[in-house]
């Protein structure tokens, strides 16, 4: 690969993220799709869109499977091949990569890719059990492990090895809530203090309530095409120049390292190579902060800093708006929210806004190159995408 565009994003859509009472997943997706159609008047959805890929984690939430067809039907695309992808929290990161493959293969010129999850109507205990399904059952869950518990194991290991502190983790929460306060579509739009984060209820020590992402409803989508067709649809395309996915053991306990996600590291390395971009060149990134420790580890896995330096990166506010490499300007999973299936393409939505100068109060000045990092479970799936202003 030589850094040339793989595909172009010609439009994007995102529903409001939050507690969307009385709405079914397909209806939430329709809200995101409508925005994408409205943003791109030159697109004739029924005739131009040739395939749909949708990330969705759990049919248990709504007693509804067959998500591809269900969603396609509700956005007037019941006639197109519609495929659901599932890779836990990386479901739509994987959908995005699959959609890129579909365009690159030459089978489809224009595709829609997105994701959706409707979660908030279920009791928290039930949602927690559904989310735990992303991890190993017979050894981890069976013996009492929870999903926050897995990231807490990484946090303890990171603290032990590098001297990372609970304060560092709380700083990430405070930063992402500040970013979320600037995003009108975020689930939580209120700033929090360091004291609030540090004194919140313990979920899985050393992780507190404010170290955990939100249970959220939401949908996101993108419309992709071949780079040579992009200008037919829009004057401001964003090109995807790197796309990578990697895997690891399903059980956290089998990993060589407990302070880094090998899959994310590998995916990042491949994506940087493909895009011919160095980590120092990234202007803005959306990373998978399902827990604050996950964002800190992402800094290191994406080579924004050296292993063990994540704590000092946040301490120096380098990942805050105005810093060297703003991370999660949308508020991230932490404050924007984490409707699991919608997260991967929701990250791409934010990068599209940033690279086209449409991010409003949270705009990163002159952002030209962006990155998204979407992780499934405790790291058995990871996708990394790199974007360039077209």
């Amino acid at each position, binding site marked *: 690969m030589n850094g040339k565009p793989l595909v172009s994003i010609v439009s994007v859509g995102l529903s409001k993220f939050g507690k969307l009472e009385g709405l079914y997943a397909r209806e939430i997706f329709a809200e995101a799709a409508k925005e994408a159609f409205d943003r791109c008047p030159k697109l004739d959805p029924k005739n131009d869109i040739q395939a749909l890929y949708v990330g969705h984690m759990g049919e248990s939430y709504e007693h509804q499977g067959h998500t591809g067809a269900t969603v396609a039907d509700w956005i007037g695309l019941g006639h197109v091949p519609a495929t659901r992808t599932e890779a836990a929290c990386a479901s739509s990161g994987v959908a995005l990569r699959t959609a890129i493959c579909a365009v690159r293969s030459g089978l489809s010129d224009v595709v829609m890719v997105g994701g959706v999850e409707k979660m908030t109507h279920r009791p928290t205990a039930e949602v927690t059990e559904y989310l735990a399904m992303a991890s190993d059952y017979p050894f981890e869950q069976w013996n009492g492990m929870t999903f926050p*518990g897995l990231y807490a194991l990484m946090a*303890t*290991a990171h603290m*032990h090895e590098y001297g990372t502190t609970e304060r560092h983790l709380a700083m990430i929460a405070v930063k992402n809530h500040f970013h979320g306060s600037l995003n009108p579509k975020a689930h939580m739009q209120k700033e929090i203090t360091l004291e609030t984060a540090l004194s919140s209820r313990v979920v899985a*020590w050393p992780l507190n309530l404010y170290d955990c992402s939100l249970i959220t409803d939401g949908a996101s989508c993108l419309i992709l095409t071949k780079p040579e067709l992009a200008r037919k649809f829009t004057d401001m395309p964003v090109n995807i120049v790197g796309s990578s996915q990697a895997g690891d053991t399903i059980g956290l306990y089998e990993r060589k390292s407990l302070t880094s996600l090998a899959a994310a590291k590998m995916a990042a390395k491949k994506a940087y190579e493909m895009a011919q971009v160095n980590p120092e060149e990234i202007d803005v990134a959306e990373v998978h902060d399902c827990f604050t420790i996950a964002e800190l580890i992402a800094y290191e896995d994406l080579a924004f800093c050296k292993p063990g330096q994540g704590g000092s990166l946040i301490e120096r506010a380098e990942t805050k708006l105005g810093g060297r490499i703003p991370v999660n300007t949308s508020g991230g999973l932490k404050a924007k929210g984490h409707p699991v299936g919608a997260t991967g393409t929701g990250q791409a939505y934010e990068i599209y806004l940033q690279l086209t100068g449409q991010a409003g109060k949270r705009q990163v000045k002159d952002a030209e190159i962006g990155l998204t990092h979407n992780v499934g479970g405790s790291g058995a799936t990871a996708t990394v995408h790199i974007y360039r202003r077209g």
Partner: protein
Amino acid sequence: MRTTEQAPFTIEQFYKHINQGKLLGGMCTKCGKVHLPPRPLCDNCYSQDFEWTEIPARGKLLTYTVIHIAPVQFQSMAPYAMGIVQLTDGLKMPGMIRGIALEQIKIGMELTMDFGTCAATQPWPQWPRYYFKPA
């Protein structure tokens, strides 16, 4: 050591051994890799020929957490500690840590495995649970 020659190298069988108070892994007879938990297909050389091998049920604590918000079936035990334990030859297992005050748990401490029995109160899987406790 061929303890149960005919037994399949499955998760179900792993827990049958736990029920008998034994920690057994599957050693690939072709490449020698020991799988703990066992698998029916060697992920290194793709052989399906294994021998059961007993793993010393003790090791060092690599990392841990204290679960405060627990799944329904564990709520009566919360807060409780979960850890990952380094056994011999690079093998690791996750599990609950019991028999020690939570604040006394330290990374690097020696732990041994304790074996529960199967309560058989639910449909399949009816597996026993194992725990770690101070050596």
